[in-house]
């Protein structure tokens, strides 16, 4: 598989502040890559370097086979961008802003524009200054999605959108993917990333702390299990890979615990000998993954 975007060992500082500290990031062609991280982790800085708006201090960046700083114009014909905080020209209408951005990029299909306006329920005749945050976001989304480009770079594109519009957005991204185009999606909304993304990169303090497919990432985390047993659950606690064992204290003797992915099979075998009356297991959510990643790091920092 070829990569639409490859970043290796990217460094960027603003004066004393290190924004990126050896970041690695890849978007495979035709895939949707999630880009997760808390505020200030360096997501927007990375995206601005990908767009050639900021220059990297060091590191390798290749976008669609081009260098974002030196080949900016050529590159931008082939990608579209939605900023995290859309600022529109106050005296232009939304429709004018969409047309302007499309024309500056080299044109877009009128039919596609009309269809997107309809789907996002956006009134193109209002002036930029009168739009709410969600509607400004829609203007940028329509302009980007109407473009016939190979790569979409989206910086928290759904911030400010209502749940209905989020659904429309997710449909649109699914269509983009079906058409074989690539997407870099920076987001806070884990459910959205879980639903849309093939791969996920988690960034913290300017470097990637975790990346891979969702399935791969799930390997790194734990499955939550709630079980009620005839036998004595105490010995479970001694098994390798079992964490946070708690008896609920109810009469049915339900216990809950988390199991490392690698030890899941052996733990289940052990449970078999204890007389399982009921069992529920929850796969690790991205949220747990995310929180655990940071939780661990935080514990590490504190200790």
């Amino acid at each position, binding site marked *: 598989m070829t990569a639409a975007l490859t970043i290796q060992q990217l460094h960027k500082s603003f004066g004393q502040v290190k924004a990126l500290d050896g970041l690695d990031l890849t978007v495979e062609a035709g895939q949707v890559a999630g880009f997760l991280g808390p505020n200030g982790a360096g997501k927007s800085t990375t995206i601005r370097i990908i767009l050639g708006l900021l220059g990297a201090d060091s590191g390798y960046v290749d976008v669609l086979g081009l260098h974002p700083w030196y080949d900016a114009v050529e590159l931008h014909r082939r990608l579209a961008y939605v*900023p995290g905080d859309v600022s529109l020209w106050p005296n232009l209408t939304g*429709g004018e802003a969409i047309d302007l951005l499309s024309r500056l990029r080299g044109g877009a299909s009128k039919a596609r524009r009309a269809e997107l306006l309809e789907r996002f329920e956006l009134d193109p005749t209002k002036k930029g200054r009168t739009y709410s945050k969600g509607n400004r976001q829609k203007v940028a989304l329509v302009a980007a999605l109407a473009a016939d480009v190979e790569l979409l770079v989206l910086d928290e594109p759904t911030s400010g959108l209502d749940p209905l519009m989020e659904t429309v957005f997710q449909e649109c991204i699914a269509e983009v993917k079906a058409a074989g185009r690539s997407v870099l999606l920076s987001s806070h909304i884990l459910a959205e990333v879980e639903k849309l993304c093939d791969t996920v990169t988690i960034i913290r303090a300017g470097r990637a702390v975790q990346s891979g497919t969702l399935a791969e990432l799930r390997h790194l985390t734990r499955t939550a299990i709630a079980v009620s047993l005839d036998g004595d659950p105490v010995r479970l606690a001694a098994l390798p890979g079992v964490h946070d064992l708690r008896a609920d204290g109810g009469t049915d003797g339900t216990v809950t615990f988390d199991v490392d992915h690698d030890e899941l099979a052996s733990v289940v075998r052990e449970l078999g000998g204890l007389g399982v009356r009921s069992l529920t297991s929850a796969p690790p959510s991205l949220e747990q993954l995310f929180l655990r990643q940071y939780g661990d790091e935080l514990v590490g920092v504190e200790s």
Partner: protein
Amino acid sequence: MTNFTATGDLVRFALRRDRVKLPIWVGAIGLGMLYAVSALPTVYSTPEQRQVRARLMDSPAATMMSGPGYGLDNYTLGAMITNEMVLWLAVPTAMMSIFLVVRHTRAEEETGRAELIRSAVVGRHAAPLAALILAVIANAGVALLTALAMMSGDLAAGDSFAVGLGLGLTGLVFAAVATVTAQLTEHARSASSLAMAVVGAAFLLRALGDASQRGGNILSWLSPLAWTQQLRPFVDLRWWPLLLPVAVTAAAVGAAYLLSGRRDVGAGLLPARLGRANAAPSLSTPFGLAARQQRASLIGWGIGLFVFALASGSLSDSVSEAVAENPDMGEVFRANGQDPTDGFFGVMALFFALMIAAFAVTSVLRLRSEERTGHTEAALATAVSRRRWILSWLGYTALASVVLLLVSGLGVGLGAVTSGSDGTVVAEVLVATLAFAPAVLVVIGVAAALFGLRPGVSSWAWLVVAYAFFFGFFGALLSLPDGFAKLSPFGHTTAMPLSSITALPLVVLTAIAAVLTVAGGISFRRRDLDLS
């Protein structure tokens, strides 16, 4: 009184936010007065020298740029300062007050910060009242500093305080005007522009009124910029004209109070209208965007300059008449080696060129605000190169500046024709005005270079305009060495008579402008986008 809850807190907050800006404004105005008070006595040390100066000031052209001419018969230092300096201190005082009020009212609403403030325990009218109180504080500072500066030159205390008080109250009038315009428009920029248009109108009215009659006529009295000079300080002091700014301020504040009760937070009184669903074909390029963004501003400047130019041009014949009636005055002009009418047209051309340089700076500085608001980011994320972006914008600025030079030159020429000059004057004045185009280009180049190299301090480009203005109009008055004027890009063009225009300085200025622009363009291409 709950309408005004928390006004005191807001005033303290505003003082904190403006702790650098306001002292600079107030201090600069005070220093301007101090400089005049200390420099003029050394330049014009004897009564005879001052009388020569007085004869020079007794022409419509000079009157338009100075004052009503009280005390010309016995031109003391005080009379001289009141007649020649007060106007040029009143205009910055008005500007300070306008920017201050708009910054703390409409600009806050536009950015949405006012919403945050108003959601707290803050009265409906607390913010505008706080802005006005801040304006009172700043203008009191101007009044005190200018009065003390005059007294430091051994001028009479009462008259000095009259001038200071007049300046401060003039500032307050325009602060009140700005609270009204801030109610009308949704944009801070249009609110300031509207208030600045009132300053422009006041400037024009005083110029026309004072030029048509010694001491001014009814037109002068309509202009708040004239009232301080109408106190006749150091000649025959009267205090009652100070009632005019007090009354006008009260009326304007009352009007703003009524207007603000009729609108929502963030909204203007003029409702926002729906616009086009599709962009016009012209809005397809960075140049088209630059033109569209500045369309209203260009039209406003064009109309304003043309009207002012027409009015000034129509005064040209009274200059010639005055010279014919007063051989002494002709003597003075001939001593300067200039035909008086030519001298008048030359001053006009320089004045308009400097106004247009100010337009050019605001236009280039919009590149910076486009960058800061993220618009540039959106545009540069499309297939637009940085070079194309900046050159399109600067190209538009240059083109618009040349158009404005043409409009001003045409206005002065046509004005002169209406007052009896023959038609050839139109072409002459046009060429004379256009001769300043290279100087305006240098100003654009300086702003562009600053924008590229040090975007955070782009606004320092104003210093070039301020410098050129000061040495263009006061260099001669203060008899400063010629080198100072030659440092200004506007010091190399002698517009009238046309035969005095030489090509070399113009070519050199254009080359300097080109080098500066290229430097700005290259450094913009090399630097990070600065969104702070």
